[in-house]
């Protein structure tokens, strides 16, 4: 081994604590980067190959009923490559072992298996047989959640008739990677599932022979999608078409795409913080090393070693430090990447989602971190180059302190000596102090963000399920029914209160913008479904005009007082101008509200109802569910408790693990920063502290002086971190301002308390790790040595 190599390894060993601290930060950064990037890549690749291999359609449309012959007209439209017509029906299911009624979406498939748009992947069992009309395939998640398997039987009400369906296969579809039912935003796999049934059997049950009510289209390569959608709408208009839409509005695809966008953002932003801290740590370790080794550097230079080889020596030190973090970071990243991918597989359902790690990704992770090491080393190496051999063999001049703000303002005289020393040490290297504060502040901020997600979701849930949806159960009818249907509902066991609502599919237009949506007509005196404004005050449906949720208002670019065009997408398809009466605040989904009677007169109806909101006596809930399961008029039942449970479950499964990892990693940043700073303070000021011990200061007093500086920096970092954290949360809010849900900027007390406690503990532990060394200070050496 060359002598300089020996020195290198000994330096690494000598400074192992600090090297380890920097390496840990590197490891966390790389692990986060690889975890998130590989999850992103895996998810994106799984999505792409699934869409491709299973021929996910490009355009979708629902309609009331059209003759099968229309399919040829659609095929003839310019840009259409392939058309698949289907019969789709939402039905109430009676699942064995489930008290509540479940909702099922029955989707028709050809009796004979053949390649088709939105093709199925058969996980187990077999395809249906034409001779057995009650055979169905069911979605994998629904089967798993309800422990159904090939051979299980599920009850269903098909067009008013109770039927028993037999599960013959378990399947997955690219249309339902994220499997949610109509009007649901979070998956509830126990109570919603997709079932595929033979076209003839389904058509027969719903009197749809020779007809369809759902169509998917694949576009040719150079098709003009907007143009095609317009033409398709025109074609489907007289068949009760509900306005066609592209993939970007397809619920499952949109949720998946949003999630991918999120991972992409955080996979750049979080590792960047770690990288910045790692560069800083490497920089301070190296600059300290250069100071400590002035003599050695001078000696080596005197022997004829050039700046290049000495610079290379310190560069190697930095690179080895980073390498020490890279390898475990990569392994941890691969492990966590696998775990994250598995977690995503819990609610994004792919035939398979292998963990993909692109070599390019690893290459970049390694390269970026090595470059960071170089950046950290450069400043130190420049100091080496600047040292003249003779100069460097003299000890460094005593630390330079001058009167500053504290002295000029006279504040100094009010502080005890110990505090003065601390403040001056901090002020002497303002940049280092600022960077330390920022580094720890970033960690505090990261922890705040991790906690904020919970607070925001809690608040979102509170608004949605305590203020807006106050009903226990929502009952949906197949068809709008006369107001009398409500009496039937009110007589059901356990129903304490029932309020009707009317939901009408419409397209709202304002200038060039338009949005397909359901407008809900609510009774003026309703209590079970309420509208709230931005201050969470209850708003009653306006006697005139329409009330839009804030997000919908934004999407349409309207404010209170503006006119919007309302095109009804069913029945007589009226087109009306209505005034926006105001904007309401809802954090989940988007919606539009009108007074029920205003809506009825707009439609020229006589108070029809689409469903009812129920308040239910829990003691009789089971009985009620039993009855609802078998009511022919009911197409779906949504239960608030079940929705809350399902959301909680998702939050716990996903955010909790992610947050714990984020908090742990942030604690590593705090620990790494504090350990390094204290370790360096000890080596820089070891003599000073030992002198104080000789002068009769106790070990405790000296430890206080050593740690005081870090304590001050850490305490400064906490409010700074809170500000950073608040900023990060505020920056996240627009990123989460989506149609599906919006995170409110609600940061609970705990989002401040947890990061502070974690930071203080991490700081204290790492500081004490160094403080033990105070006891080992060589007091006698102080009398003899000079530095």
């Amino acid at each position, binding site marked *: 081994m060359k002598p300089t190599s020996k020195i290198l390894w000994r330096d690494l060993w000598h400074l192992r604590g600090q090297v380890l601290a920097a390496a840990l930060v590197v490891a966390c950064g790389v692990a986060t980067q690889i975890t998130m990037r590989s999850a992103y890549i895996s998810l994106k690749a799984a999505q792409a190959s699934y869409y491709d291999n299973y021929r996910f359609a490009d355009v979708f449309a629902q309609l009331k009923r059209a003759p099968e012959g229309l399919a040829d007209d659609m095929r003839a439209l310019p840009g259409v490559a392939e058309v698949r017509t289907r019969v789709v029906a939402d039905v109430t299911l009676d699942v064995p072992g489930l008290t509540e009624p479940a909702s099922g979406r029955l989707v028709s498939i050809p009796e004979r298996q053949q390649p088709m748009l939105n093709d199925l992947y058969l996980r187990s069992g077999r395809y249906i047989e034409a001779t057995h009309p009650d055979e169905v395939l069911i979605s994998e998640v629904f089967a798993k959640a309800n422990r159904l398997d090939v051979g299980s039987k599920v009850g269903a009400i098909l067009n008013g008739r109770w039927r028993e369906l037999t599960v013959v296969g378990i399947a997955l579809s690219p249309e339902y990677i994220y499997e949610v039912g109509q009007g649901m935003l979070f998956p509830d796999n126990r109570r919603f599932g997709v079932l595929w049934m033979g076209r003839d059997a389904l058509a027969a049950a719903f009197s749809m022979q020779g007809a369809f009510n759902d169509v998917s289209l694949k576009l040719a390569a150079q098709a003009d999608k907007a143009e095609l959608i317009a033409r398709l709408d025109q074609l489907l208009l007289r068949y009760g078409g509900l306005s066609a839409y592209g993939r970007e509005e397809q619920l499952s695809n949109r949720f998946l795409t949003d999630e991918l966008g999120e991972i992409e953002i955080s996979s750049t932003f979080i590792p960047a913080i770690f990288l910045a801290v790692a560069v800083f740590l490497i920089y301070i370790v190296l600059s300290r090393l250069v100071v400590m080794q002035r003599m050695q550097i001078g000696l080596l230079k005197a022997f004829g070693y050039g700046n290049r080889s000495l610079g290379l020596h310190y560069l190697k030190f930095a690179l080895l430090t980073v390498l020490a973090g890279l390898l475990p970071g990569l392994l941890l990243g691969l492990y966590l990447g696998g775990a994250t991918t598995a977690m995503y597989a819990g609610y994004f359902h792919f035939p398979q989602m292998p963990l993909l790690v692109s070599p390019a990704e690893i290459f970049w992770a390694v390269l970026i971190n090595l470059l960071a090491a170089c950046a950290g080393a450069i400043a130190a190496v420049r100091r080496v180059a600047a040292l003249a051999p003779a100069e460097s063999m003299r000890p460094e001049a005593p630390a*330079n302190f001058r009167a500053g703000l504290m002295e000029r303002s006279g504040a100094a005289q009010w502080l005890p000596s110990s505090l*003065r020393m601390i403040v001056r040490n901090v002020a002497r290297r303002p940049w280092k102090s600022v960077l330390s504060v920022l580094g720890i502040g970033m960690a505090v901020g990261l922890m705040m963000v991790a906690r904020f997600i919970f607070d925001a979701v809690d608040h979102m849930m509170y608004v949605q399920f305590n203020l807006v949806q106050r009903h226990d159960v929502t009952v949906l009818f197949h068809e709008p029914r006369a107001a009398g249907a409500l009496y039937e509902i009110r007589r059901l066991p356990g129903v304490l209160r029932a309020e009707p609502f009317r939901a009408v599919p419409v397209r709202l237009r304002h200038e060039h913008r338009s949005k397909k949506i359901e407008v809900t007509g609510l009774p003026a005196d309703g209590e079970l479904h309420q509208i709230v404004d931005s201050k969470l005050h209850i708003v009653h449906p306006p006697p005139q005009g329409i009330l839009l949720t804030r997000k919908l208002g934004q999407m349409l670019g309207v404010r209170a007082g503006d006119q919007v065009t309302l095109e009804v997408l069913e029945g007589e398809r009226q087109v009306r101008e209505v005034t926006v009466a105001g904007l309401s605040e809802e954090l989940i989904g988007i919606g539009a509200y009108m007074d029920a009677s205003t809506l009825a007169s707009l439609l020229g109806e006589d108070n029809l109802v689409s469903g009812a909101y129920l308040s239910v006596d829990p003691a009789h809930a089971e009985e009620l569910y039993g009855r609802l399961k078998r009511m022919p008029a009911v197409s779906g039942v949504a239960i608030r408790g079940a929705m809350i449970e399902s959301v909680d479950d998702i939050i716990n499964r996903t955010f909790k693990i992610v947050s714990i990892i984020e908090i742990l990693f942030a604690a590593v940043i705090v620990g790494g920063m504090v350990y390094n700073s204290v370790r360096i303070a000890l080596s820089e000021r070891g003599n000073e502290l030992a002198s104080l011990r*000789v002068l*009769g*200061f106790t070990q405790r007093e000296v430890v206080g002086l050593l740690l005081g500086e870090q304590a001050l920096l850490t305490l400064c970092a906490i409010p700074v971190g809170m500000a950073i954290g608040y900023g990060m949360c505020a920056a996240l809010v627009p990123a989460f301002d989506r149609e599906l849900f919006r995170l409110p900027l609600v940061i609970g007390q705990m989002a401040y308390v947890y990061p502070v406690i974690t930071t203080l503990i991490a700081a204290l532990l790492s500081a004490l790790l160094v403080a033990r060394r105070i006891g080992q200070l060589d007091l*006698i050496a102080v*009398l003899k040595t000079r530095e």
Partner: protein
Amino acid sequence: MQLSSGSKRMDDPRDDAGSIFHVHKVTKIYRMGEVEVHALREVTVDLYQGEFAVLLGASGSGKSTLLNILGGLDRPTSGEVYYRDHDLTRADEEGLTRFRREHVGFVFQFYNLIPSLTALENVALVTEIAEHPIDPVEALDLVGLGNRRDHFPSQLSGGEQQRVAIARAVAKRPDVLLCDEPTGALDYATGKLVLEVLERVNRELGTITAVITHNAAIAGMADRVIRISSGSIVEERVNASKLAPSEISW
């Protein structure tokens, strides 16, 4: 633990009038890897009230080891060390810290001032933990640096720094001032200035002052000169006529 008081014995040296430090048959052996180094061999010596003692010896003679033991920085391998009725041999770490804090003033060869504190604050640092300190301003006046009190160490010359160190050492009114090569890092003129300050402190405050040095000329200003060689006291003499610092030269 409290400093333990030694039991009275027949040949108790503390019977000797004015003896403050009593070192009796002290041996100190360091283990340097495989080798045993006898730094002190059965050294017996006393320091008396108000005296200015110079411990003279070459490098490696054991004089620093003796100073460290007197100052409570090190414990002898065998033998006894008493400060008044405190047994330093049996004191624990905490007891030694308290002994240093209450009774000993140190002056180091390289001053060891706290760089982040001004001259005045360096002195005040020690007076803050002392029971009956001298006012820090007065202490700086005593060493002739009243006008430099707001300067930081990096703004002071070596001699000035050493004088601040002396002011810091005496400000808590120690019973003994231990100086390890106080002029070792200074030039001739500055060194003499520092010696004058030490002499003045000894004269005005009556603090026992023990200076270790290899510079034989300094012995001229001592009340008593103790010469150490190879871990043993080879000569102990009282100066009949003490010289003023201005009268000595090297």
